[in-house]
């Protein structure tokens, strides 16, 4: 079958089971857009900015559990994608990014809208290609999808010159991809598994750190079985949230810079820590050299380059989380750890971290807690980055798998709205909320038009404190209270929503929070709620930058209240 390069691209996407593409047309991708109407099974979402197209593909991929696809044209279309690609790669999200490139004879001549985009994306993707001929397209797509999905998932970028899209070639989609040296190892080394089991069985004060890898490999049941069988408490990294039920008695909460104080202190007392599908990140561990000084570390991860990167691992096990846990479970002896669990309860009592300090005024924490109430904790929540993100991680109990879609590694403000849109397209029947700060929202709000045009009924909560809140908090605590460029004006968000044809609600009253959230959910379509919250609320607990987890600062108001008791 002889097809044009553009047709081969579409055929390849169809073969890989793609149903949605997030894209933006332009000169160098015109041949692709020309043939797109011939493929009605591919839904194209016309975004308003390529970065958001990448974030939508990211949100879509995380919720769908499969590859997300985004398209941009050459030059600015491609460079606009870069933030979104880096974001997805840092959070191990499977994605394919397709960009147009100027025609082969123009490459290297600084042609109009030419950019050496494979040179730009190279350090921020898992792999990339500059396709040299139409005949290379099908094998390239097959390899790209295989790489994006397999092992530690990631972003693969394919740059395709315009004349390659027009060139004719025989289309024959490869049925398998052979990269023998790449083949990710799913099963863990049996000897290492035995050594890990021995450590776990002998542990007096074990803790599990469950990360994003648990979600990516779907190891929910195995994680729960391990925790329950040996009565091991579970903590989460930010991206690991919703890998373990949030109201489970063994669940301790998030660790790290804004983790629960009892978790951060408890880490210092643990004797064995089992890290599953997480990368010992600096925001989670605090100062590396002081992390869990008494603990032996077991590390289960598909990516061996994460072992010994930040902390020295006692027993590394390279493999897929689900597969390795299945191998490990038969070796684990049932245990109770009653003393250790009692000690943790004591830590919880001594270091409360989840009281909302003021119930008269609307605090940002109220929004997250109310969201939990009105959605029964079933909603998919996408967040931006900053204070609201941390509160959303702390004050919502994620009982259902894979419910928090957030930008962890890169920390990309403005992620919430486009990621929520992608999530909603992946799960059209699910309730999806974008929770975003006023700063972040103003970075990607143009996608409101996409919501309306493409009928993507996400609900949006803007947690507006009139500041770049997390930066303000750092300036308050670590920069002599000097507020520099953090007070931020925004538009009238309700009117803004109305300008896009979206109903908007607003409140600054704590007793109205649930009502406005319900009103937004009752509306059949996208809806926006503007919360005017306490301006200078700080996010606690907090580990100061560069400090150890044991140096966690607790909310001074809670400390005072506790002292009065």
């Amino acid at each position, binding site marked *: 079958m002889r097809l044009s390069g553009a047709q081969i691209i579409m055929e390849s996407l169809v073969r890989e089971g793609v149903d949605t593409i997030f894209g933006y047309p332009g000169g160098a991708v015109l041949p692709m857009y020309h043939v797109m109407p011939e493929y009605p099974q591919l839904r194209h979402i016309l975004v308003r900015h390529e970065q958001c197209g990448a974030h939508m593909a990211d949100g879509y991929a995380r919720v769908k559990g499969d590859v997300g696809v985004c398209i941009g044209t050459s030059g600015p279309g491609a460079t606009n994608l870069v933030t979104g690609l880096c974001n997805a790669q840092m959070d191990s999200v499977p994605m394919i990014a397709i960009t147009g490139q100027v025609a082969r004879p123009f490459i290297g001549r600084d042609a109009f809208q030419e950019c050496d985009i*494979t*040179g730009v994306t*190279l*350090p921020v993707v*898992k792999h990339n290609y500059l396709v040299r001929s139409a005949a290379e397209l099908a094998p390239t797509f097959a390899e790209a999808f295989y*790489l994006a999905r397999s092992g530690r998932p990631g972003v693969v970028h394919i740059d395709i010159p315009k004349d390659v899209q027009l060139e004719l070639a025989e289309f024959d989609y490869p049925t398998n991809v052979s*990269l023998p040296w*790449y083949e990710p190892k799913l099963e863990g080394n049996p000897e290492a598994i035995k050594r890990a089991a021995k450590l776990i069985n002998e542990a007096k004060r074990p803790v599990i750190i469950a990360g994003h890898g648990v979600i990516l490999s779907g190891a929910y049941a195995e994680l729960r079985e391990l925790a329950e069988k040996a009565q091991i408490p579970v903590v989460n990294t930010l991206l690991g949230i919703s890998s373990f039920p949030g109201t489970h008695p063994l669940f301790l909460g998030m660790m790290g810079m804004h983790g629960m104080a009892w978790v951060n202190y408890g880490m210092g007392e643990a004797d064995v820590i089992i890290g599953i599908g997480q990368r010992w990140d600096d925001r989670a561990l605090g100062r590396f050299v002081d992390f869990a000084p008494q603990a032996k570390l077991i590390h289960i991860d598909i990516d061996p*380059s994460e072992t010994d990167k930040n902390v020295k691992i006692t027993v590394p096990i390279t493999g897929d989380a689900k597969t390795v846990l299945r191998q490990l479970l038969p070796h684990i002896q049932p245990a109770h750890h009653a003393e250790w669990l009692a000690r943790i309860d004591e830590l919880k009592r001594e270091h409360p971290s989840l009281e909302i300090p003021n119930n008269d005024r609307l605090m940002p924490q109220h929004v997250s807690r109310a969201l939990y109430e009105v959605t029964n904790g079933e909603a998919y929540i996408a967040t931006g980055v900053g204070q609201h993100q941390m509160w959303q991680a702390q004050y919502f109990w994620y009982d259902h798998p894979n419910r928090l879609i957030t930008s962890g590694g890169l920390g990309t403000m403005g992620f919430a709205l486009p990621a929520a849109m992608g999530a909603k397209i992946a799960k059209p029947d699910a309730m999806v909320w974008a929770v975003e700060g006023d700063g972040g929202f103003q970075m990607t709000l143009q996608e409101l038009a996409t919501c309306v045009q493409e009928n993507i009924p996400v609900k949006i909560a803007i947690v507006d404190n009139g500041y770049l809140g997390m930066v303000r908090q750092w300036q308050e605590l670590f920069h002599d209270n000097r507020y520099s460029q953090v007070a931020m004006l925004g538009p009238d968000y309700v009117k803004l929503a109305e300008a896009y044809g979206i109903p908007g609600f607003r409140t600054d009253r704590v007793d109205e929070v649930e009502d406005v959230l319900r009103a937004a959910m009752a509306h059949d379509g996208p809806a926006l709620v503007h919360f005017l919250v306490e301006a200078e609320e700080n996010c606690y607990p907090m580990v100061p930058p560069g400090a150890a987890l044991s140096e966690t600062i607790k909310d001074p108001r809670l400390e005072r209240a506790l002292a009065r008791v």
Partner: protein
Amino acid sequence: MAANKHTIILLVRNRPGVLTRIASLFRRRLINIESLAVGHSETPGMSRMTIGVDGENVTMDQVVKQCQKLVDVVKVVDVSSEQTVQHELAMIMVDCPPEKRAELVALTDIYKSSIVDVGPDAIIIETVGDESKVDSLIDLLAPYGIREIVRTGRVAMVRTSAAVDDGRKRFIRAIGA
């Protein structure tokens, strides 16, 4: 922390951009590549690289692991602590008026090197050996007036005996003996 000399051998897919991918991992850590030699390997479509760098051991471990993650990299080993043969080739253009020729021919002979070009007032000496041999020849030629030096950078191979030992160890581990 002290920087140590490292020699890293990579087997890579012979594709455009593969060098950039590898070099990029060193660049992001501001590690300078001291030497680099690339050429075809025994397998068609695969090239073998030898990279010489100065870097902290912990950092180099990470770089090597991250090199291994690159899709185009088939195999990567830091052979710094192994028994290896390491050679490079250098060509040295040195001033050589007719009256100095005999001296320079003798010196070249001592170093088991060869004169590959002779001009009216200069010659090119080609030498092969480990870096210290090349360095010492250059030192001896310096007084004559060196015009130009080109060095390939070292290529390295793990010694056959070491490879056999390693293979035997792996075999013993595999059978659990």
